[in-house]
């Protein structure tokens, strides 16, 4: 096919991707946007297949068949509570795809590939002119090196993120020396990229980049704990996009560059939003522990004798009298699979004329927007899901707040206690409401490891137990009232 026509159709595909993301700016147009984006993908793939460079279809058919089956099964079987795991895996596969493309391009341009295991490290004679004339050859080599680097670390980093989210890996491991250890790995892989650019036939350098980057991905994510996962997933999302854009530079392919940079910025912006919502810098999330509290806070001192507990039917009485109730969900709601029960409770309240809204903290859950997807699954209308900035001024006019499975994002110490590690983190000001109901298994601290003075306040009652069971009992009691 005429290269001009191919480029033109890639442009059309790029426009469809942009329109697709534009559609995501409103829930009403989002489905159409996704369809447009998929259409762009389809025409980009079809035009590539019709392009004269593709002559051997066996590997393609096999790959597309295997990939489609795995992708479709994952997409249709996955539970909404497990979306963070799915996105983590997809990030990793994106990085892996860019990695293998860059490797294929490298060996293809080199004109020879190792035929046995021992030949992998044997240098071959090659110069940058194999990869393009003059500076273009150098640029292609730099792009290959960087794509391999970022693709490989995205692959292993995402697999670790998946293992942590799936709770296959519960402990946190890190390199001795923490950030310095990681820094040494990063510098070493950068040096390997330089070696490759200076001597393109140095296949050992390529092997070194792959190995170092794979390890770097492991070591970067292994020390990071569960509640910081939203940041890590968003960042790896960004890396997978950057790797795709770099692969576009290797192949001189415009649609890869456009699509990759859109994904790259998307991930970066989400990372930024998550960091702001935790009042922590990216370096602090990646390398730091949460700052040790200035003065040690004694949980017993805060809770002793001041915590009131209540039974679900007592809460139901409270709810019946209320005019306005706000529900604040957290990761605990996802763990307890309580989203449907919560919606049924809200339905019962609304049937009695109570106004119900949901207050969503940006880092509630294990990925950006996690709570919204769960509640949407339970058929909660999206206009009832209110962001932190808009819900906070309304708490003073709220009769009851139900906190289910959230802890640190409601801790008033973030607002009041200057020495506290979470001081300055924006929180949902649920303590301003007239009554607060906290559904929780015990008084155990959240991820920050801090006691929550909210639980000891006079207008707070604790309902201990399984989130789903407690909510169901409240609904039953409310319906009987």
């Amino acid at each position, binding site marked *: 096919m005429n290269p001009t026509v191919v480029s033109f159709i890639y442009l059309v595909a790029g426009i469809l991707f942009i329109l697709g993301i534009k559609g995501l700016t409103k829930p009403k147009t989002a489905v159409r946007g996704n369809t447009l984006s998929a259409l762009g993908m389809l025409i980009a793939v079809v035009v590539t297949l019709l392009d004269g460079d593709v002559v051997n279809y066996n590997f393609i058919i096999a790959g597309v068949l295997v990939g489609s089956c795995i992708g479709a099964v994952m997409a249709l079987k996955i539970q909404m509570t497990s979306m963070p795991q799915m996105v983590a895996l997809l990030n990793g596969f994106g990085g892996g795809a860019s990695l293998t493309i860059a490797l294929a391009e490298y060996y293809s341009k080199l*004109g020879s590939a190792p035929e046995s295991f021992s030949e992998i490290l044997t240098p071959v004679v090659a110069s940058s002119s194999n990869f393009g004339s003059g500076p273009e050859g150098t640029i292609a080599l730099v792009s290959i090196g960087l794509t391999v680097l970022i693709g490989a670390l995205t692959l292993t980093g995402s697999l670790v993120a998946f293992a942590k989210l799936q709770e296959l890996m519960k402990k946190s491991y890190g390199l001795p020396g923490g950030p310095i250890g990681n820094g040494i790995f990063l510098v070493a892989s950068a040096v390997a990229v330089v070696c490759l650019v200076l001597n393109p036939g140095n296949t050992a350098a390529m092997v070194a980049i792959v190995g170092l980057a794979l390890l770097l991905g492991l070591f970067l994510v292994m020390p990071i704990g569960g509640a910081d996962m939203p940041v890590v997933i968003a960042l790896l999302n960004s890396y997978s996009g950057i790797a795709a854009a770099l692969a576009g530079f290797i192949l001189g392919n415009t649609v890869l560059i456009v699509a990759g940079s859109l994904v790259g910025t998307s991930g970066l912006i989400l990372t930024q939003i998550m960091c702001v919502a935790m009042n922590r810098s990216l370096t602090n999330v990646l390398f730091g522990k949460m700052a040790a509290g200035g003065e040690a806070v004694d949980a017993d001192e805060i809770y002793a004798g001041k915590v009131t507990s209540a039974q679900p039917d007592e809460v139901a009485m409270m709810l019946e009298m209320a005019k306005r109730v706000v529900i604040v969900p957290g990761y605990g709601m996802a763990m307890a699979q309580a989203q449907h029960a919560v919606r049924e409770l809200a339905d019962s309240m609304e049937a009695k004329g109570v106004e119900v809204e949901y207050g969503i903290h940006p880092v509630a859950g294990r990925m950006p927007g996690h709570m919204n997807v769960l509640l949407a699954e339970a058929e909660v209308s999206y206009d009832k899901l209110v962001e932190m900035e808009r819900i906070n001024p309304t708490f003073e006019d709220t009769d009851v707040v139900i906190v289910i499975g959230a802890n640190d994002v409601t801790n008033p110490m973030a607002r009041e206690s200057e020495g506290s590690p979470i001081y300055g983190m924006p929180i949902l000001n649920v303590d301003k409401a007239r009554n607060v109901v906290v559904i929780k298994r015990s008084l155990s601290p959240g991820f920050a490891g801090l006691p929550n003075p909210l639980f000891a306040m006079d207008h707070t009652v604790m309902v201990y137990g399984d989130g789903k069971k407690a909510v169901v009992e409240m609904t039953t009691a409310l319906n009987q009232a």
Partner: protein
Amino acid sequence: MEILILLLALFVLSLFLGVELITKVPPTLHTPLMSGTNAVSGITLVGALLAAGSDSSPLLVNGLGFVAVTLATINVVGGYLVTNRMLAMFKRK
């Protein structure tokens, strides 16, 4: 060299466009945004097809191409399907 400048210009302009677009996506749709962009980053399938389908190259290239096609296809098919599944839940009222 001129081509490189053009590609670079395209890259930088796309970054700016990305910032403009993504900042307008409401927090409610951030999870579908992530899975949707995962699907878009499956555009590496285009590069993968070229590698897997090339002829005069060593077999290793085709093999790597096969792995790339498989991974990118998982992203494309899995990403679009799961995004569609989620967005359908947001649509119904």
